[in-house]
């Protein structure tokens, strides 16, 4: 049976990490084997008592002591309350939930495309892939330099990774524009074996289409789709994508799955809807 009761965790530390974003260090009071098996791209429901629950991804998955981290952007009620909490506060945890990124990246050429807070679910994957992928390339886009998150991780990656940053509004002399605009330069003549992408949905869809045109098969292009989520168990109905519930079947889908789901369901975009009004 599904257990909808959170387990306690302690807010151990937090630091500012980007515009309106904080990086939270959390500790599960009673970590279990399933927590230690959490995969990059999976998520957990964080309960702030009195303010409800919301989904967040692991930046660093739980270790043997139950310590893990999450990057949270302040967007509304629950995150506002979280930012005000004292160190030592008790929070609730349900996880790990959903499906993470594909595991079979060993020996592959991997391209990671991240936008804004979408870097958070990719951080753990980047750290794993740097050790086992044949080649790892990362491009990270943000609206402007102040909006970039995960400063400490990026500083590390800048030193020893094929890593690029771009901003919609960049500092003079810096790379600017959407990550999609830089993909041809980044890839040259090469076609990656796997593309992993997380960020605003229009960025993910544009990246997927671009990579598809460059010859990456749709099944090797992975997206992490954000949907409103409340139960994380395929029951409350909020996270639907066609006949799929992103909280259990996702949030990562390959592009072929995404296209098949939306086509079978006859889904159409809001832009298409407005055109017909």
């Amino acid at each position: 049976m599904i257990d909808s009761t959170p387990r306690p965790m302690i807010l151990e530390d937090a630091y500012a990490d980007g515009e309106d974003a904080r990086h939270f260090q959390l500790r599960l009071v009673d970590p279990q084997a399933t927590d230690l098996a959490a995969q990059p791209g999976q998520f957990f429901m964080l309960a702030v008592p009195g303010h409800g629950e919301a989904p967040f991804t692991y930046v660093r998955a739980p270790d043997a002591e139950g310590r893990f981290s999450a990057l949270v952007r302040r967007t509304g009620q629950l995150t506002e309350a979280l930012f005000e909490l004292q160190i030592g506060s008790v929070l609730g945890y349900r996880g790990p939930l959903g499906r993470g990124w594909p595991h079979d990246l060993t020996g592959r050429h991997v391209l990671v495309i991240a936008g804004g807070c979408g870097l958070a679910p990719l951080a753990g994957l980047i750290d794993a892939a740097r050790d086992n992928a044949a080649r790892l390339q990362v491009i990270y886009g943000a609206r402007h330099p102040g909006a970039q998150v995960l400063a400490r991780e990026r500083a590390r990656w800048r030193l020893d990774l094929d890593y690029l940053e771009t901003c919609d509004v960049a500092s003079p002399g810096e790379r600017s524009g959407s990550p999609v605009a830089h993909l041809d330069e980044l890839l040259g003549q090469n076609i990656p074996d796997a593309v992993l992408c997380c960020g605003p949905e229009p960025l993910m869809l544009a990246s997927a289409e671009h990579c598809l045109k460059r010859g990456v098969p749709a099944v090797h292009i992975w997206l992490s789709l954000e949907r409103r989520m409340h139960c994380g168990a395929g029951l409350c109905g909020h996270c639907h994508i066609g006949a799929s519930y992103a909280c259990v079947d996702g949030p990562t889908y390959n592009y072929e799955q995404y296209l098949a789901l939306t086509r079978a369901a006859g889904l159409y975009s809001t832009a298409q809807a407005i055109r017909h009004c």
Partner: protein
Amino acid sequence: MLAAHKLDSPERLRAHLAQGREVQEMRADGQGGWHWQNLAAGDGLPFEPPPRPPLTSAKPLFFAEREALFRFDGGTFYGCLPEIEPKVLFGVSACDLRALAYQDQFFAQDEHYQRRRRQTLLVGYDCGHSCAGGFCTAVGGSPLVNQTQADLILRRNGHGGWTLLVASQAGAEAIAALALPQAPEDWTAERDADLAQVRAEQGAQAEITAGIAAIQAASVEPERWEALGLRCLGCSGCTSVCPTCSCYAPLEQREEGGALLHERVWDSCLYTGFQKEASSHNPAATAGQRVQRFWYHKFGTAFAERFGAYGCVGCGRCDVVCPGSIGAHGVMTRISRP
């Protein structure tokens, strides 16, 4: 083959089942409404099932409209599970039992739902005529209770009396002490006749069949859905009365004494903000997109395959409540027109 008994009166059966169980039955409120009521001990009113599906199905008796999931006392989270006494739902129609079977699958891992379900004996009721607006026979259903979806099945027989069919072990045990006589063998022929009668009364329902085909082929253009969306007031009438709708939202409450309560309440996928994300991105921003999703959920192939049945049982409640006339018939007629 079902065991079939002759029953002198449904009221005697009901009184018998009431021993050690709470009995709930639909009762008229005298103003055109019907409601589930807990019958008082010794209640002897005649069993009179509603002439058409009442707006309240059996859904809220299992998937509560509002219930607590957990409580937080400042240091620990405690699960809140309902304590349920044995009960009987007396006189549930085939369409509502079919919806319940659908929900049984959907909520298979939901302990709140299953606790209620495990404690409930279901007494179904075969319809001899179609209700006004019903179309069970067009969506793979039947006016006759499916024997896998109830414990006992009550039916009026052609001799002015009653037949009781035993559909489960729990049903057999519940009536063993009554030592009912066997029913005359014509009950199967009578059931066949009832089905034929209801099929004839409901007719071909061509717009329903054509609408389902259009949804499954994903061939309805966005402009049609958007035109239907203009008629949707986002009132949640359809999702509340629909016996298979199951969406919910969380609700936080502070109790007297300071503990925090996390509840779930029925929600509606037709509300504007149902899918709105914190980033303000809304994948179902227009009413047309939401109406489209609602009907895809009811008739889409992937859902039908997952549940082995449509998410629509043909009860017609949405047609009754929708102020914009986009219940099942309203929608299916409009999307199936060339």
